[in-house]
């Protein structure tokens, strides 16, 4: 079921022909028929197959690496260790994409040299005639390790005598927010509540493990076809190999999911090195087990909230500390920590605020981008605290939230004034209504309702000066082409551009060809990350299409003898608005305009609004272009004898600004309902002294199709966003509140709260039994 909000603050008189409609995506047929080509599908003559030697320990000195026997194995064409690499042996793991500034320049060794710092760190690369041969070569490599003392906890890493993993003190990043008068705020409070919440590692578990083929072509250009969210990695590959940027060509075909796991470079640089060394095409398709250690999982966070509230339910002050485990290398940890810091207070206005946040390096797996990017972990803690506060003061939890929601024009945690619509209340109200009545408890089943709201940015950090380009052109026969190097990671990025260009130029999306994912043929569009692909590439495409339309209208106005603004395009026709009988087909228009020498193409750039960073002392400043607001609600059943939690109903209600494709929006809401459910209930990478203990799908439990609850998507449209047609980013926003709502539902069902995720049956059963014991004692 879907609802379109018709609140008075929606922009009226929007007359959209394709945008916002429930249209099959352009990429559906090729995927349904199994024709879509993914990176690992490419087969080339003389192709070699690669394997990577990963460290089997988390913290050790490398005394020696002996590859002499491996190299002699017939059919093995390249064996590389750090000694064979350019002296820098470093690859950028910092913010990739079309960014102009603001990067932290955090580099990571391509291959471990004298030391391994985490379990799975790559040590050697092999290319051979087959995977089996490559594996045999790996087995012949002898690495002499000497284990050293590591540190495996983000708090231990900050102690004075901790082994140093990163920098001088293991501190990868730290932020603070100082706003208002925290002491005065707590004095004004009737109640002060302090709680600590913590969350676990989560694996992206995309359908397609990392895969790529690299080859050097007849022009000595290094080509890489890879499953990546970011084709702009060609620069980092070139820098790592000491090559000019224009000699590395990175293309992304359809990508089988990313969720942040293919944001930072994964396997591309390894293949680049092997292809250059062997001078033959080299392919690597990661096994699922190796995939678990080839990209960074979600950061575990520990978050303490101390909150002051009046008995009427107004938040007077908040003191919040956040600590994340960055693992052995920085990767994107500083940015993820910043997102968590901004998101620490959720969608609530807190004028007296004190936040300290720290990301510490350990010898655990390096953590990295994952849908929600820190905001999700912050939301999970914040929404638990909101629920506990409302319980403390005896107020309905939505009523309590209403008293504190940020409104348009209010400042958020870093003092950024929110300019778009804030429909937290509408979304939360609708989400909760959709749950209906709570089922009655039975012999050993209790039920709970849970709600969570959020504030999630879309678009990248403003001082990165993010840009996106797109090209739209009308062919002589009236067909449309869009060229935009956006990577299509499965969310319908390509299809959305067809819909947007088609809307502007009056051509059905099905008839539009979009060239995507190839950064040397198409204009660079930036990353498919940060909920910015639709926002940025869609906006660039909208602008380019409008340029083309303006050129065409100028010519056609003369033809119809009207002013250009009197014309419109729709149903493959150009027509006079007041007299639609006066029309011409787009096909004839194209021919006519071509004959007149009209410029029927446009390359346009969209620049996100910039800013110059935060005040380091107060943490105040403009961090993001804008934010999405909404809510998720869930009903759970808990088995009081086994602790098993079953999600019965899951409802996402979000102000998406403007849906471009309703099916795609529903897909995002439904997918996030499952992903959030996994985080709340069962997913957790288990590390023992840094060593991964459950790196496979038989041990790491994601929800299956049998675990899907009834899911309802409620789509609200304020048309107030920065994206095309007033859209807001949704990829991450719709995910961020899901786990929190399920966690709150479990707390509602069992009458007590578990502070550390995930809520495994064992933890839930223990909590139920403790609560029983407590009640008996009382």
């Amino acid at each position, binding site marked *: 079921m879907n609802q379109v909000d018709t609140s008075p603050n929606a922009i009226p008189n929007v007359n959209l022909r394709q945008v916002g409609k429930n249209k099959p995506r352009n990429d559906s047929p090729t995927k349904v028929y199994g024709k879509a080509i993914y990176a690992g599908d490419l087969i080339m003559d003389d192709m070699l197959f690669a394997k990577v030697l990963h460290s089997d320990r988390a913290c050790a000195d490398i005394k020696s690496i002996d590859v002499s026997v491996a190299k002699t194995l017939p059919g093995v064409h390249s064996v590389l260790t750090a000694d064979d690499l350019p002296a820098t042996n470093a690859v950028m793991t910092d913010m990739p994409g079309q960014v102009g500034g603001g990067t932290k320049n955090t580099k990571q060794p391509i291959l471990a040299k004298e030391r391994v710092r985490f379990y799975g760190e790559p040590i050697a690369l092999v290319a051979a005639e087959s995977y089996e041969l490559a594996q045999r070569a790996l087995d012949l490599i002898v690495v002499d390790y000497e284990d050293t003392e590591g540190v495996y906890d983000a708090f231990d890493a900050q102690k004075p005598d901790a082994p140093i993993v990163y920098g001088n003190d293991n501190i990868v990043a730290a932020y603070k927010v100082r706003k208002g008068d925290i002491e005065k705020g707590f004095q004004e409070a009737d109640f002060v509540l302090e709680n600590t919440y913590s969350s676990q590692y989560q694996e992206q578990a995309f359908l397609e493990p990392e895969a790529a083929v690299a080859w050097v072509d007849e022009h000595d250009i290094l080509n890489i076809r890879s499953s990546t969210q970011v084709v702009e990695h060609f620069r980092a590959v070139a820098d790592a190999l000491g090559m000019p940027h224009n000699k590395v060509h990175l293309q992304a075909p359809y990508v089988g999911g990313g969720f942040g796991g293919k944001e930072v470079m994964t396997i591309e640089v390894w293949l680049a090195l092997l292809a250059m060394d062997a001078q033959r095409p080299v392919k690597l398709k990661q096994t699922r087990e190796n995939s678990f250690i080839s990209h960074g999982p979600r950061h575990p966070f520990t978050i303490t909230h101390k909150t002051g509230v009046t008995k009427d339910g107004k938040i007077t002050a908040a003191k919040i500390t956040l600590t994340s485990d960055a693992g052995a290398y920085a990767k994107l940890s500083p940015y993820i920590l910043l997102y968590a810091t901004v998101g620490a207070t959720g969608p609530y206005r807190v004028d007296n605020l004190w936040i300290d946040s720290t990301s510490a390096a350990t010898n655990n797996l390096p953590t990295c981008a994952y849908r929600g990017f820190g905001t999700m972990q912050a939301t999970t803690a914040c929404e638990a605290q909101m629920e506990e506060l409302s319980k403390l003061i005896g107020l309905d939890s939505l009523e309590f939230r209403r008293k504190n929601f940020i409104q348009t024009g209010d400042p958020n945690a870093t003092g950024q004034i929110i300019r778009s619509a804030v429909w937290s209340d509408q979304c939360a109200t609708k989400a909760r209504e959709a749950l209906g009545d709570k089922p009655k408890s039975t012999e050993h089943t209790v039920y709970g309702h849970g709600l969570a709201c959020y504030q999630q940015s879309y678009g990248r950090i403003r001082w990165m000066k993010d840009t996106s380009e797109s090209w739209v052109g009308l062919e002589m026969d009236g067909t449309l082409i869009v060229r935009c190097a956006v990577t299509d990671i499965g969310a319908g990025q390509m299809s959305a551009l067809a819909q947007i260009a088609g809307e502007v130029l009056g051509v059905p999306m099905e008839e539009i060809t979009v060239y995507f994912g190839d950064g040397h043929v198409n204009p660079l569009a930036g990353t498919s990350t940060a909920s910015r692909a639709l926002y940025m590439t869609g906006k660039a495409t909208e602008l380019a299409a409008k340029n083309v339309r303006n050129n065409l209208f100028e010519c056609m106005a003369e033809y119809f003898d009207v002013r250009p603004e009197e014309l419109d395009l729709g149903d493959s026709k150009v027509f006079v608005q007041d007299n639609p009988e006066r029309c011409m087909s787009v096909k004839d228009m194209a021919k006519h305009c071509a004959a007149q020498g009209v410029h029927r193409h446009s390359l346009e750039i969209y620049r996100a609004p910039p800013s110059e960073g935060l005040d380091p002392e107060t943490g105040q400043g403009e961090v993001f272009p804008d934010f999405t607001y909404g809510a998720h609600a869930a009903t759970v059943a808990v088995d009081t004898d086994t602790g*098993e939690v079953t999600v019965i109903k899951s409802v996402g209600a979000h102000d998406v600004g403007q849906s471009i494709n309703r099916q795609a929006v529903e897909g995002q809401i439904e997918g996030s309902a499952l992903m959030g459910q996994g985080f709340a*209930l069962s997913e957790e990478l*288990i590390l023992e002294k840094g060593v991964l203990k459950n790196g496979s799908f*038989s*041990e790491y439990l994601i*929800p299956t199709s049998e675990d899907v609850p009834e899911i309802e998507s409620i789509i609200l449209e304020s048309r107030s966003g920065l994206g095309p047609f007033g859209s807001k980013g949704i990829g991450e926003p719709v995910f961020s509140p899901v786990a929190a709502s399920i966690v709150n539902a479990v707390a509602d069902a069992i009458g007590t709260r578990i502070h550390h995720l995930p809520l495994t*049956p*064992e933890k839930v059963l223990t909590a139920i039994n403790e609560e029983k014991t407590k009640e008996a004692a009382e």
Partner: protein
Amino acid sequence: MQYEAPQTLDAAVALLADARGAARVLAGGTDLLVQLRSGAIEPDLVVDIKRIDELKKITAEDGGYRIGAAVSGAELGEHEGVRALWPGVVEATELIGSTQVQGRATMAGNLCNASPAADSVPAMVAADATARIVGPDGVRDTSVRDVATGPGQTSLGRGEIVVSIFLPARPARSGDAYLRFIPRTEMDIAVVGAAVSVSLDDEGTCVAARVSLGAVAARVLLVDEGARVLIGTKLDDDALQALAAAASAACSPINDKRGTIEFRTDVAGVLARRAAQTAFERAKG
């Protein structure tokens, strides 16, 4: 590695008996292929028994059913006779893996893989099922309890194959049930499994019972004390409570990432109690 798919049982036994190195029997392959691909095992010979006709049949015998070793879970699930007689065994077998896995996985394979957490085995033990084994020395029948001797270990001799499982006849007013605990709905290895089979007299009093637990010891357990406390009762609350206590008391599980000793012990009692209730309802008809 040599792969053979003989069409007769004699040929299969001869191949296995004559094998020089390590040999494995392949039925559905849902365990064996995973072990092969991961490199956990490297047999010199794999003998596929799916081409042997007699192993692909379900036959009525002495009021019970003989299930061939190559019969898949999906085929078993579609057999109305077995479903009616031993619904708990069928539901246990159908819990192995997923719909796709069901198309291949077999009860005999589940038994011979010798995992203490095998789903179908507690149900077979509760059913007092017999495994028929054929080897170089001929045919022998043995209780399914005696096939697995420890995790991954069986009592099968060189060249021996489990060719069928026999589910015996049972009195009217009998029922069985199997329950498994995993943290999600499918595709996982049991944290605990519990099977109960009961027979009732005309008054509805339990006259015979068997209780079996999986994943709580090195082998699947037969819990005699659990059966004892049910017999002579109508499975009232006290009897069920006593069953739960007996089940928990029988457990000697390990701590691992799937569950702690305490949790497994606790949940074994819960599942035994619930399985008994379902078996009782089925017996009453």
